[in-house]
C-alpha cells in the first residue's frame, strides 16, 4: 500500500512518509484533496478493498486502472459514500476530504455527495427534459434561486460540459432523445451544476464510440482546471491520455500509485508492468 506520488520505492507494508514531488506541478501536488488511510471495504463478510492508502491532489486528474473486479470502482464509490446504499456494506479506516473524515459519525452524507459529484458508467439521465435534468440537483439542494438564476446555472453547466451549443435550442426536449455521448455529457453537466469540487467518474466513456469518447476526454482535460477529477477506466490508453496520476488496483489492493508517465513507462512493481504491457487483465 502506498500513498504518495513520486515516491521512488513503493513499499507494500508501511505507509511511506510524505515525499516531495521533484518535477512539474509542484505546488498542486503538495496539496492533498483526498487523503485515504488504511481503508478497507466489506460487502457483508467479503472484503473487497484491503488497506488502501492514497493521497489525491487537487486540480489533477487521477486515474484508477486495473482488471475487472479489482476494486477500483468500489474504491471510487467509497469517496462519496455511494456504497452506503448497498445493504451490508461496511468501511474501515479513514477517508478525509479537505481534512474532514467523511466516515466520521454525524457527517452530512447528502452534503458530501453534493460536494463530490459522480458520473456513472452508463449514462443515467432522468426521464425529463434536458433543462430539468441539469436543474434537478439545484432544485433538491435549494440552489435553484430565481428563474433567471436557475436558467443561468443550467446554461453555465451545459457550457462547461461542452454541450450548450448542441442543445440550446431544444432544452425542453427529453434527455432520452439525445445520443449516448450527449447523454453522458448531460450527466456531467448535471453533476457540475451543483458546484462540486471533486468529480468522480466511473468509466464514463466505456459505453461510447471513439468520437464521443474523445469528446469526454477533452472535457476531462478542460475540467481539471476547476475540479479535482478521479476517473476509473479499464482503458489504459485513456488513462495515459487524460490523467496526471495513475493508481493501479489488483484484487482489492492498491499496487502502485505514481505519476502517469512513470506508471506506463517505468513502473516500480512487476504486477503493474505486466498489466500495463497487457500481459494480463
Amino acid at each position, binding site marked *: 500500500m502506498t500513498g504518495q506520488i513520486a515516491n521512488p520505492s513503493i513499499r507494500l507494508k508501511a505507509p511511506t512518509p510524505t515525499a516531495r514531488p521533484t518535477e512539474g506541478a509542484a505546488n498542486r501536488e503538495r496539496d492533498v484533496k483526498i487523503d485515504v488511510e488504511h481503508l478497507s471495504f466489506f460487502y457483508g463478510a467479503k472484503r473487497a478493498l484491503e488497506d488502501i492508502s492514497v493521497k489525491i491532489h487537487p486540480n489533477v486528474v487521477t486515474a484508477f486502472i486495473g482488471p475487472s473486479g479489482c476494486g477500483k470502482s468500489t474504491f471510487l464509490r467509497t469517496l462519496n459514500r*455511494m456504497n452506503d*446504499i448497498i445493504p451490508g456494506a461496511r468501511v474501515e479506516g479513514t477517508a478525509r476530504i479537505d481534512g474532514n473524515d467523511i466516515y466520521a459519525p454525524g457527517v452530512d452524507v447528502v452534503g458530501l455527495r453534493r460536494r463530490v459529484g459522480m458520473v456513472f458508467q452508463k449514462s*443515467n*439521465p*432522468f426521464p425529463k427534459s434536458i433543462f430539468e435534468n441539469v436543474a434537478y440537483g439545484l432544485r*433538491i439542494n435549494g440552489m435553484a434561486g430565481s428563474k433567471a438564476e436557475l436558467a443561468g446555472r443550467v446554461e453555465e453547466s451545459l457550457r462547461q460540459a461542452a454541450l450548450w451549443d448542441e442543445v440550446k435550442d431544444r432544452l425542453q426536449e427529453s434527455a*432520452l432523445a439525445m445520443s449516448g455521448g450527449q447523454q453522458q455529457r448531460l450527466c456531467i453537466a448535471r453533476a457540475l451544476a451543483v458546484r462540486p469540487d471533486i468529480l468522480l467518474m466511473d468509466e464514463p466513456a466505456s459505453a461510447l464510440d471513439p468520437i464521443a469518447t474523445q469528446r469526454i476526454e477533452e472535457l476531462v482535460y478542460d475540467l481539471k482546471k476547476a475540479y479535482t477529477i478521479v476517473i476509473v477506466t479499464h482503458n489504459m490508453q485513456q488513462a495515459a491520455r487524460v490523467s496526471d496520476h495513475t493508481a493501479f488496483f489488483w484484487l482489492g489492493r492498491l499496487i502502485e500509485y505514481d505519476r502517469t508517465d512513470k506508471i506506463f513507462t517505468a513502473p516500480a512493481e512487476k504486477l503493474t508492468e505486466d498489466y500495463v504491457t497487457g500481459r494480463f487483465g
Partner: protein
Amino acid sequence: MRSRDIGFRLSTGAFAFVLASIVVAIGFELSRQSMLSIQKFGFDFWRTSTWDPVAGQFGALPFIWGTLYSSILALLIATPVAIGIAVFISELCPRILRTPLVFLTELLAAIPSIVYGLWGIFVLVPAVRSLEIALPDSLRALPLFSGPPLGVGMLSAALILAVMVVPFTSTVAREVLRTVPLAQREAAYALGATQFEAIRAAIFYARTGIVGAVMLGFGRALGETMAVTMVIGNNPQVSASLFAPQYTMAAVIANEFTEAADELYLAALVEIGLVLFIITLVVNGLSRGLIWTMAGRKSGRAAA
C-alpha cells in the same frame, strides 16, 4: 421447420383472434338482448333516474352514478395507501419483513368478495355508523354528509372497495418500482438527494406503470359486485352524500336479474350490463391513452 413456424404463428394468432372476438361477441350479445329497452328509451336510459319495473319506466342514471362515484372515491382512498405500501415494501422495508408483507397483500387479493361483504356488514358498517353519528352537526349540514346515519351507504361501499383495490394496485406498483434501474436512484443520490428525494425520482421514472396500476384498481372497482351490494344500501338515487344509500350497476343486475319477469325489465337490466361494459372499455381505453401520451413524450418510454 418452416411449416412448423407457420403452424405456430397461425395457432397463436387464432388464440389472439378468439380473445378479440369474445369481446366483440359480448358487446354484440348485450346489445341484442337489450334491444327492446334501447329502442324504447334511447339515450334517455343514460340520463333519467326513474327505475320503476311496475310502470315499465327504466332510467339507469342512479346506477351509473353509484358505480362511478363509489369507484372514484375508492380510487381516491386506495391510491395513496397502495403506493405507500408499494414504496415501503420495495424501498424502505427491512428485508426480514418483506416476504411476509408481500404475502399478506397478495392474500388480501385472494379473499372472496362475499367474505369482504360479510366483514363489511358486521364490522365496517357499524363502525361507519358510529362515525357518522359522531360527526358534528355543522358538518352534517353539508351536502356531502347529509341524510340519516345508517351506516350502509356510499361511504361503506367506497371503503370496502378501497380495501379490495389496494392489494391489486400496490402489487402492480411494487413490481413497477422494482423495474426502476438502480442507476436512477444512484443518479439522484449522487446529486445530494435524500432518501425521500431518491424515491421520488424512482416513482417519477415509473409513473406510467404506476398510473397503469391505479387504473387496474379502478377497473376492478367498477365491476365489483358482491361486497358493494351488501353494504351500499341498494337505493337508486343520485346523491352526493357519502351517507346516502345508493346503488351500482353491478349490484342492480345481481339483485334483480332473477326477478325480472317481463321482457322489457330484462332488457333494461341487460342494457345496464351493456352500459357497464362500455364504461369499463372507455375507462380502460382512456387509461391506455394516458399511458401512451405519457410514454409518447419520449421521456416516459423507458418506464413503459
